[in-house]
């Protein structure tokens, strides 16, 4: 729920475990307690998308949760995330954008033990887009009052046996019909690519194609489309950088062009998916989808600099829902 900082403070004081997203100055005023947080001033609210430095988005842990455990992670400990996540429940991880930990997680999460066996979701904290490069995104560990720009924080939530959590991913992009693109090395940038099996300089290839950088590269992970968003493209310098890594051996295609980004996004939001206990949405969807003032159905939460559904995703909406076991 999108609330005043006073309301968020009252919930924490009442010992309600919560996940809080908001402007850094507001989060700094919250008391110690069972909460985790991350910085971002962009939100999906009941009234539509908005930028706010006066309100925060609070996601409450269900009252019937059996337990809540909050852990901070650094580059030495993040690989235990999957084994730390509860056997029955879910984990919400928040990492600060542009940190070494963000980078490491993006590269290595798919190899972490148990990561796909547990329900691990979350987001990458950010800043106002005008502050990128000036202010470091932060995460907050409520129990200790730590404010971190190089570490991450996770809330592990254990559920009673009769409930199960499930991650949903909304991705409006599809692989286009164009060239198959691979990269010779895993990483966040490249100066060469392999187009239909032939190695070529990025500048030479993309300089000819009128490449739309709003559209990501898309890979098909056995039915789950995974995007890599373009951060910058330097044609004369033959260099492309990404918001998530490209992986050597993975076949990408540039996303299929779409008519109305906003319409496509809004029509893709699922309805009647049951109780949602977490949701976040990429800030690129906010920008390119012109979501300011436009409602995103029942799914609300922070806009992010990256989404986590087991591993780092780009340009998606991620949600966690609960259902009762049959």
């Amino acid at each position, binding site marked *: 729920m999108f609330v005043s900082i006073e309301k968020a403070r009252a919930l924490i004081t009442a010992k309600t475990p919560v996940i809080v997203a908001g402007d850094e100055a507001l989060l700094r005023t919250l008391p110690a307690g069972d909460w985790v947080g991350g910085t971002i001033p962009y939100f999906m609210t009941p009234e539509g998308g908005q930028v706010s430095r006066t309100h925060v988005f609070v996601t409450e842990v269900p009252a019937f949760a059996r337990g809540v455990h909050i852990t901070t992670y650094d580059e030495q400990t993040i690989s235990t995330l999957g084994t730390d996540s509860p056997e029955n429940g879910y984990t919400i991880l928040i990492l600060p954008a542009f940190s070494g930990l963000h980078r490491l997680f993006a590269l290595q999460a*798919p*190899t972490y033990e148990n990561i*796909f*066996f547990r329900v691990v979701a979350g987001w990458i904290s950010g800043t106002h887009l005008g502050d990128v490069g000036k202010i470091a995104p932060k995460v907050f560990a409520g129990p200790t009052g730590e404010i971190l720009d190089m570490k991450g924080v996770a809330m592990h939530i254990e559920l009673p046996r009769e409930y199960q959590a*499930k*991650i*949903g*991913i909304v991705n409006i992009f599809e692989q286009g019909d164009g060239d198959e693109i691979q990269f010779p090395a895993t990483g966040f940038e490249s100066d060469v690519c392999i187009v239909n099996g032939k190695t070529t300089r990025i500048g030479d290839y993309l300089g000819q194609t009128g490449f739309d950088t709003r559209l990501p590269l898309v890979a*098909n*992970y*056995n*039915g*789950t489309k*995974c995007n890599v968003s373009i951060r910058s493209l330097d044609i004369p310098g033959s260099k492309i950088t990404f918001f998530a890594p490209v*992986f050597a*051996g*993975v076949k990408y295609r540039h996303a299929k062009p779409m008519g109305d980004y906003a319409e496509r996004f809004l029509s893709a939001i699922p309805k009647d998916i049951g109780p949602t206990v977490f949701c976040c949405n990429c800030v690129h969807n906010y920008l390119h989808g012109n979501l300011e003032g436009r409602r995103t159905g029942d799914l609300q939460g922070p806009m992010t600099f990256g989404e986590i*559904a*087991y*591993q780092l995703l780009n340009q998606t909406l991620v949600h966690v829902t609960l259902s009762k076991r*049959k």
Partner: protein
Amino acid sequence: MWASLVQGLVAHDFSYPAAGMLIFNLNLQWQRDPSKLPALVKQVWAFFLKYHHLLGGDVVKLFSQR
């Protein structure tokens, strides 16, 4: 079947995202080091055991391909 999934010999779009992502990433690991195949297959088997209630439709389609 399980080894074929890891080796990418069977193409299937899974209805449950974690399944598709797991098998895709196991295939990348196998490409880097084929000697890991038995350990990677164990992971697929364990995953299907844990999430069989979500993967029933996928299992039917997978085995009907054989």
